[in-house]
């Protein structure tokens, strides 16, 4: 059963792989075939590579996804700790307000967010793409749950040894919540790696484009035909870094998801 699902799920990826190497721009009779052609071609990769400044876009995407994650890890750890272990007035209300933010559709926030970015002087900069994501309601919630699951006795022991609050986070909570951190990182990086609409709003200069916008220049050809080979090759170039990373650390990731309860 699992095998059947795995097979169904992998068909689009296999097809992309095959199409990327198939000679002919579009429309050869066996276009939809999964069987690779005898002589694979790299022409589509060359064309895709020429269509967009991939090294630059990849770098921008790495900066955006990496930068967001780096700041998020700090903010969600501190916020998660506060909601999990500290007592302060209005804690419950503040936490629910945080959760409410998860219900908002991101599209309605475009204009207010953009106005704020312009006022901060971050329009058309990578920082402008990153800034709205520095705090994450989902991450805060996740870390709060993870921290609450850690026995208080461990913290008490550290307290007796004279550890202050950040030492307790550093030596007790963070190491024990590692699976939650990893799970959150994957979700965060993949969503920001693939994001299209918000970067499109903020970025003007070609030099600041992330991969998704660079790729769009040749997949959104409304009135052209779909040059499947080139699209497949371009998409492959875009997902390659993420896919490689995932394959390399697959076991680790799966374990994190299981222990943190995210699917």
């Amino acid at each position, binding site marked *: 059963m699992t095998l059947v699902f795995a097979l169904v799920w992998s068909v689009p990826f296999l097809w992309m792989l095959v199409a990327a190497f198939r000679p002919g721009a579009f*429309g050869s009779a066996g276009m939809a075939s999964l069987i690779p052609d005898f002589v694979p071609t790299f022409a589509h990769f060359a064309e895709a590579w020429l*269509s967009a400044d991939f090294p630059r876009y990849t770098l921008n995407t790495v900066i955006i996804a990496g930068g967001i994650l780096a700041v998020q890890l700090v903010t969600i750890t501190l916020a998660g700790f506060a909601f999990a272990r500290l007592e302060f007035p209005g804690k419950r209300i503040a936490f629910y307000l945080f959760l409410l933010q998860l219900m908002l559709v991101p599209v309605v926030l475009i204009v207010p967010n953009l106005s704020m970015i*312009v006022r901060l002087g971050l*329009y058309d900069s990578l920082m402008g793409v990153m800034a709205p994501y520095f705090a994450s309601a989902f991450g805060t919630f996740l870390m709060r749950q993870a921290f609450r699951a850690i026995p208080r006795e461990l913290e008490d022991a550290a307290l007796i040894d004279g550890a202050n609050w950040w030492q307790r986070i550093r030596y007790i909570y963070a190491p024990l919540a590692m699976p939650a951190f990893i799970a959150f990182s994957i979700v965060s990086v993949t969503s920001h790696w693939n994001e299209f609409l918000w970067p499109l709003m903020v970025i*003007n200069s070609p030099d600041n484009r992330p991969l998704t916008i660079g790729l769009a*220049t040749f997949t959104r050809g409304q009135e*052209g035909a779909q040059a499947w080979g080139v699209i497949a090759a371009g998409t492959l170039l875009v997902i390659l870094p993420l896919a490689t990373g995932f394959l390399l650390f697959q076991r680790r990731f799966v374990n994190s998801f299981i222990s943190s309860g995210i699917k």
Partner: protein
Amino acid sequence: MPINRRILLGGALGVALLASSAQAQSPTEIDLFFPVPVDGQLARDMNTLIKDFNDKHPSIKAVAVFTGSYDETLIKTRAAIKAGKPPAAVIMSANFITDLKIENEAASLDGLIKADGKTNDAFMKQFWPALRGNAVLDGQVYAVPFHNSTPLLYINADHFRAAGLDPSKPPQTWSELLEAAKKLTKREGEKVTQWGLSMPGNYDYLGWIVTALTMSNGGRYYNEDFPGEVYYDTPSMLGAVTYWRDLIEKYKVVPSGVVAGPAVTTSFLAGQTSMMLLSTGSLTHILSNAKFRVEVGFVPRNVRHAVAIGGASLIIPTGVEGARREAAWTLIKWMTNPEKSGWWSRATGYFAPNMAAYELPEMKEYLAKAPQAKVAVEQLPFAKPWFATYKTVPVRKALEDEVQAVLSGKKSPKEALAAAQKTADEILKPYNAETSLRNF
């Protein structure tokens, strides 16, 4: 030497002069938002065009900013205006101009035209008459046509000959279209190996194709003089949607479901579809990639020949002032002059909005080689404005969602159009409440 007033004044004047000459040397920076309704090659062509402009205008530095699809370009432009960073100029889908004017987001260009010593009429006279309806609103010019299209019937001449049809005479009427489609469709048992006809059903494209069919059926789609009314639940549109449904369900000569524009092109180029209704904007791409002879014809008529124009125009958003506005105007005039208009037309297949482009020798030479490009121009006397209302996009989607349900066999045309009309009327309500339904 005692410093007297004269020296001080002279000094101040000198500084001011220096400052102004320094300003003249640093170019005015302007940004142009452009959607790419075309493939990667044309995005590169756009950069060539802008580079050429910058080389010839050292006092201006224009940057082309790719902004996604037509719909996404609208979202980005609106967000940028609200955030106080309006782009200097935008290539905007021609049917969004009305909505932008209602929301006070597109600026009237009358002042700039007047400063050039022209009247609005004299300025708009350069462009095909069919284009003026989407550019001149309430007597004021809000947009300058940049690249425009009409739908065309593309046919595979080889398939026509094989089916015993004459490729030099593409179907002219709906019944001829149906007969040709029947002859062209090939089946192996229940499986269709070659479709007679295909039409795009994705967002934006679908509304435009339904418009073309409705107009050919005698209808109007919307009130050209008042942006608060659309005519979805009408006999002319019902006939158009029913015809499409019958081609799918009754005669099985058109694939069912929603086929996106690029997929229609792909299957046509692959020889799996013999005819398609598609924009002239794809013409160059299709001619240069088809391995067979392609002929084009008018959109077939039921009652009359009529189509809506498509494509995009250049606008200057409100809030763009001073030197940037002047520079944007220079760019707009340059991009729409006969020479550039013709060049872009040859690169894309869009027809050139500037009529004088067709008088240039390079255009005549091109048309002699690719006579198919003439058909869109010959269809222009039958062309009408593209539907443009208050909140154009949601009003259009109200129809598209319902027609998609018809194409997938989930709804009857009658109930779909009644539902579309209801949704659209609901969206138009606030505008009508302030205008046609206002009580004094």
